[in-house]
């Protein structure tokens, strides 16, 4: 039925992009079926089921049928200081990691893109940590941060600076985790930036050079503006990933000291699995989900407005 439409050779391009954009096929649903079965079971259904759970007092330990408690869980969540503390911690972590993960990744990509000798080594050095599991990252850094026997305090000691209990002091713990996280995931953004830099045609720089722009000038008036899109993308991916932080915090500090590093996802885990209150934990998930949705919508509107201007 589709082949018949290509009657005039001259119109192939046009039909290919308009009328032939998609092929009518009754089999189409079959192609998407496997994905949507998995999608429904493991993404959509937990979302729907979680919503129902959030209105009940479902208890991990008690086998009895959960009772519907209406909005009680939501009322509790909105007034639970720990929800707001952990949400604040999560935002703090997001800010503390997103900025260095953009700035340092960009700096590293710009330096490597200069074509200095040793390309293989540089790429390896920046990308290797990204290949590690969170558990390994945590073990590495717990050892480095060890107050008495760790590398950092030993190095500081050489310069006569008194070390700190980095992961055990509420003033430093979140920053210490942010440093470890930056080290861990820098490589991915670095590669995205490097790829974007290599996609900039040399002719653009040549044109700028003819106009008399120096190296620094080229960086600010040519390179950085061209990286705007990739930076927006990295920012969005980064914020979404950081808001979900769990692994390295659970492993390095378990939310301590004094809840200064407890993230919202950890609080969901603690409430549901350690405190048995699955219903309440689901309600916290939904409050968090609502906040992320609102942030995403705001960000979309903001992006749209700045596109128009």
């Amino acid at each position, binding site marked *: 039925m589709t*082949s018949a439409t*290509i009657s005039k050779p001259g119109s192939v391009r046009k039909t*290919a992009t308009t009328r032939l954009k*998609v092929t009518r096929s*009754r*089999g*189409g649903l079959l*192609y*998407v079926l496997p*994905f*949507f079965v998995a*999608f429904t079971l*493991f*993404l*959509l*259904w*937990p979302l729907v089921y979680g919503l129902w*759970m959030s209105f009940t007092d479902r208890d991990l330990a008690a086998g009895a049928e959960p009772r519907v408690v209406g909005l009680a869980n939501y009322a509790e969540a909105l007034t639970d200081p720990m929800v707001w503390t952990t949400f604040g911690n999560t935002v703090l972590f997001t800010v503390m990691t997103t900025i260095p993960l953009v700035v340092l990744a960009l*700096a*590293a990509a710009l*330096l490597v893109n*200069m074509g200095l*000798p040793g390309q293989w080594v*540089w*790429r390896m*050095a920046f*990308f*290797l940590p990204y*290949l590690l*599991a*969170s*558990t*390994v990252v*945590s*073990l*590495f850094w717990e*050892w*480095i941060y060890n107050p*008495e*026997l760790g*590398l950092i305090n*030993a190095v500081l000691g050489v310069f006569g600076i008194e070390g700190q209990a980095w992961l055990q002091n509420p003033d430093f713990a979140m920053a210490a985790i942010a440093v470890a996280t930056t*080290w861990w995931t820098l490589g991915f953004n670095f590669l*995205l930036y490097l*790829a974007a830099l290599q*996609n900039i045609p040399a002719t653009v720089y040549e044109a700028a050079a003819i106009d008399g722009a120096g190296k620094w000038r080229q960086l600010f008036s040519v390179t950085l503006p061209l990286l705007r*899109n*990739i930076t927006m*993308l990295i920012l969005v*991916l980064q914020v979404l990933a950081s808001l979900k932080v769990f*692994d390295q915090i659970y492993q390095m500090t378990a939310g301590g000291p004094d809840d200064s590093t407890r993230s919202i*996802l950890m609080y969901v885990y603690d409430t*549901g*699995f350690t405190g048995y209150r*699955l219903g309440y934990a*689901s309600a916290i*998930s939904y409050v*968090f*989900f609502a906040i*992320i949705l609102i942030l995403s919508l705001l960000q979309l509107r903001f992006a749209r407005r700045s596109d128009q201007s």
Partner: protein
Amino acid sequence: MRTSYAGRAVAFTVLALFSLLMLAPFLWAVNTSFKTEADAGANPVTIVPAGGYTWDIYANLFRLGSIPTWMVNSVLVAAAVTLITLVISTLAGYAFSRLDFTGRRTLLGLTVASIMIPGTIFIVPLFDEMLAFNMVDTYWGIILPQVVAPVMVFILKRFFDSIPRELEEAARVDGAGSLRIFLRIVLPLSRPIIAAVAIFTFVGAWNNFLWPFIVTNDPDLMTLPVGLETVSTGFGVVFAENMAKSVLAALPLIVVFLFFQRQIIKGIATTGLGGQ
């Protein structure tokens, strides 16, 4: 336009220092892992251990530890997740790119919208669902929830969109069906993006912690990251042992990276993974 010699020298120094900082945690871990526990715990900290370097800790880990079991589990799980994700995502991406069917717009909209849903925040209902399905503590329970990757479907669809339709027309004239076109024409042309999707799915599944951690209680089923965190072999002083375990857990992917470095970097560069 070349930068001055001095400028390049400064850049080189900065880059070298930056790289050294990035590599330092590895080097320190490897160094510690070859010490005895007593030397690892020596205060003040020394670089070269007083008692000399030793292989003992590694030998013990291989003799007693569960590390080989977890490594096999990690390979199994990561390979299955990658394979299933690739199959279902390429099929769906192809259908969204080339076929029209009832509900196409709705389903595509759902897929794109769900990219923004951080699935991990629904671990509590997902776990409860797994309890009901009797899938807690099974390989399928670890694998299946990880194969849903709307972002990969979207990336693949975008790539398929960019393949010129003209290539398929000849086949269509010959009477090839959509499945044949998919297998014979579209897939072979998509090798780079498929490689990129496969690599990132594999790395993601290999390193995934939260879900496998929640759904496995039996140490024989645990993957490396979960086993290392959950099962402990020592009780007191295990500084060197922890580093040896970490180094062993890190090694497989690092070796893979050293072999496929070019492909991985090119995969990102040519396909703009993430929809650049």
